[in-house]
């Protein structure tokens, strides 16, 4: 079974440029998460989707970040314009959530963004 797929794995851009990250969750997983991981820190949740609905985007900086989950499967996270402080690893995770009970989150390898 394929895991969570993310692309690109690495991205280098200049500040003020736009950038987009793509995530393909594990087949059948209805919940998708985007996390931000700064160097030397744990992941921080940016947004959580249940199917195509964003149910928790309270930590997403909406002035420059946006996300979408088309048809409740793949998801794209965009930054426009990027700032130096956005340099980090962006992790995607997915889980199969049923009836409010816990289900394991499976993480992708992440996209390492460097803003110059």
């Amino acid at each position, binding site marked *: 079974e394929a*895991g*969570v797929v993310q692309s690109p*794995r690495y991205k280098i851009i200049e500040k003020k440029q736009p950038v987009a990250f793509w995530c393909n969750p594990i087949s059948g997983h209805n*919940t998708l*998460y985007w996390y931000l991981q700064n160097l*030397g*820190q*744990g*992941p*921080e*949740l940016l947004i*959580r989707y249940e199917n195509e609905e964003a149910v*928790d985007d309270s930590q997403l900086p909406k002035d420059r970040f946006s996300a979408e989950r088309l048809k409740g499967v793949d998801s794209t996270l965009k930054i426009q314009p990027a700032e130096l402080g956005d340099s980090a690893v962006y*992790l995607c*995770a997915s*889980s199969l*959530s049923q009836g*409010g*009970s*816990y289900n*394991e*989150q*499976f*993480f*992708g*390898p*992440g996209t390492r963004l460097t803003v110059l």
Partner: protein
Amino acid sequence: AQSVTQLDSQVPVFEEAPVELRCNYSSSVSVYLFWYVQYPNQGLQLLLKYLSGSTLVKGINGFEAEFNKSQTSFHLRKPSVHISDTAEYFCAVSDPDSWGKFQFGAGTQVVVTP
């Protein structure tokens, strides 16, 4: 809101020696607790979890953790480490009433040397 403190940012350890990684969380109410491992350039992988029941939890790769409610701790241990255990380890907590919302610690880098 929950918070997680990992008391050691880096733990050097010799191969075949035991290791303990410390984790404390802020809340005394019911929580779900997790340990994840992250190898270089890879995503996080679940090592073990505590949801309820026995306070001693066994996970993959010979790791185990003990939930201590009175001390709000969830320390991770392995009796004998291998070189391949060199990685970053993250403790995480989730409120059962808002499942799926994790709070991660800052991580502990374990470096195993021969």
